[in-house]
């Protein structure tokens, strides 16, 4: 009895120390966001003097713009991408999960293959295509692929939703069909409401991946007034003359707040989403 309790205690001590090591850089980050440039190179966790101006000055550190604009841009883009992703992926998943049609297995294996396809093979030809369409420096290169279930992680989401739809009892469809429901009605009134938990998972990951889709933003968005938060951070970082590290770290810290909020409220869906599909977080 006593030995097993000791074992349990050692395990907890180990886990606590380990967890602290893992989040130590983040704790340091929070302190550093309030430090002056001179104070930054001290190993102290927290600043000698709390420099709130890092946040207020950092917010306006790009001349002519403030981070308010960049957050509005980013959230606008996120909203468009989320709506199109949820619509397209749930439609496709319903088709695969509930209907029988010729060549279904062939299409499904194609879907699985595109899931494994390294995205970087597609970057250059897609860029060339969108360039021809005149979509450079617009948000269309993000919205259109998501509307066709082909954006960042699109096939992953379709796969996740197919698995979920297949798990719903088929009797519901049949009952609805006998009541005179069309396929659309079954999708909209029966399946979609029941798919809500999986849709939340899709929303979370779609939000995160687009927030972090730095390469995509870097390629397609050129003018500062359309910049996303990530591009704005890079712009401060690139202004070599007298880089204000405190301001940069403060603004970086603010930029992970949305993801943190989403995570803390919807942790259950996160863990389930990762565990059931092996999605990378």
């Amino acid at each position, binding site marked *: 009895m006593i030995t097993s309790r000791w074992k349990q205690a050692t395990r907890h001590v180990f886990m606590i120390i380990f967890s602290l090591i893992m989040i130590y850089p983040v704790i340091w980050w929070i302190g550093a966001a309030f430090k002056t440039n001179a104070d*930054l190179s001290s190993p102290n966790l927290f600043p000698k003097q709390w420099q709130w101006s890092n946040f207020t000055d950092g917010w306006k550190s790009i001349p002519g713009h403030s981070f308010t604009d960049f957050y509005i841009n980013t959230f606008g883009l996120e909203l468009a991408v989320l709506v199109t992703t949820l619509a397209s992926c749930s439609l496709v998943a319903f088709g695969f999960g509930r209907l*029988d049609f010729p060549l279904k297995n062939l299409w499904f294996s194609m879907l699985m293959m595109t899931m494994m396809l390294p995205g970087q093979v597609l970057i250059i030809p897609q860029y060339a295509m969108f360039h021809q369409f005149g979509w450079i420096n617009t948000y269309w290169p993000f919205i259109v692929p998501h509307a066709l279930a082909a954006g960042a992680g699109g096939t992953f989401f379709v796969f996740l939703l197919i698995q979920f739809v297949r798990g719903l009892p088929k009797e519901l469809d049949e009952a609805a069909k006998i009541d005179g429901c069309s396929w659309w009605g079954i999708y909209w009134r029966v399946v979609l409401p029941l798919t809500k938990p999986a849709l939340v998972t899709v929303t979370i990951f779609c939000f995160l991946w687009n927030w972090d889709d730095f390469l995509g933003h870097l390629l397609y968005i050129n003018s500062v007034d359309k910049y996303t938060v990530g591009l704005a951070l890079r712009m401060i970082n690139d202004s070599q003359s007298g880089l204000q590290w405190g301001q940069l770290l403060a603004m970086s810290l603010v930029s992970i707040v949305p993801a943190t909020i989403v*995570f803390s409220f919807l942790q259950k869906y996160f863990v389930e989403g990762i565990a059931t599909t092996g999605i990378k977080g």
Partner: protein
Amino acid sequence: MNRTANAASNTGAPLAPPIKKRGSWLKRWDAPIAGYLFISPWIIGFFGLTLYPMLLSLYYSFTNYTLMEDIKWVGFKNYDRIIMHDDKFLQSIKVTFLFVLGSVPLKLIAALLVAIVLNRAVRGISFYRTAIYFPSLIGGSIAVSLLWRNIFGVDGFFNKMLASIGIDAPGWITNPHTALWSLIMLSVWQFGSSMVIFLAGLKQIPADLYEASSVDGANKFTQFWKVTLPMLSPTIYFNLIMGVINAFQMFTSAYVITNGGPMNSTYVYALYLYERAFGRYQLGYASALAWIMLVMIVIVAVLISWSSKYWVFYENDTGRGKRK
């Protein structure tokens, strides 16, 4: 069931015959047509945004395409130049393989070991899981890359820590020998998502296997090798394949933290591809680079899946599965 009965009684007539009569061809084609309508967004996307671009990029790789000038077919010249005469290509291959070999195994080992400890510590599991998962949540962002750039700088926090315990360390990201390691550490720091997958896999292992093996006199160490690892091997396999594919494409941290330097020691393949394609707009040459990368990833993935028959254990291969 009740609703079915209601529907039948409302119409006041037997339900089946009228529907059968009304357009039997429509009934027969109803599901296929609806099916294709429902999956049409993906089909359009598959042809327009995946298959066609892939063929397009294969075509570009045999041209001197630059976005500005007319396209000219150059045959295998791009591939020839890349493989025979391009030092940066060789350097970026070397760096990318070092990164994959360094980050993927470390990440998986850390994820596996911590998952096993965490699986036993029942109380407080959600707190630990949150703390360990958090780096994965934010790690892909440019914000964390900037943080890393500061922490591992010459005057960075990490060196100050080492100095306070008497170690005089170089500037991690300015020294060609250590710069790649600071990127590998950033990647390993994000082992949390693999760990969550392992935790789910560990929960699937039936407890009676452990009981049976301890009755047979196996200690914890033997149980790990003979029960946990084989039962978890499909999950390890999945994590390995996805980890390798992702590691090959690493871009953001190399771009932001070191931008390939110092002395090209962190010049990963994706960075080289980006520079050729969007720094110099040599889209033809870069397309050839992209196809070489795809072929490399496919070869590595095929090798891993070929090796899997020697080390991945599927339950239904054994008597245990058949007995059910």
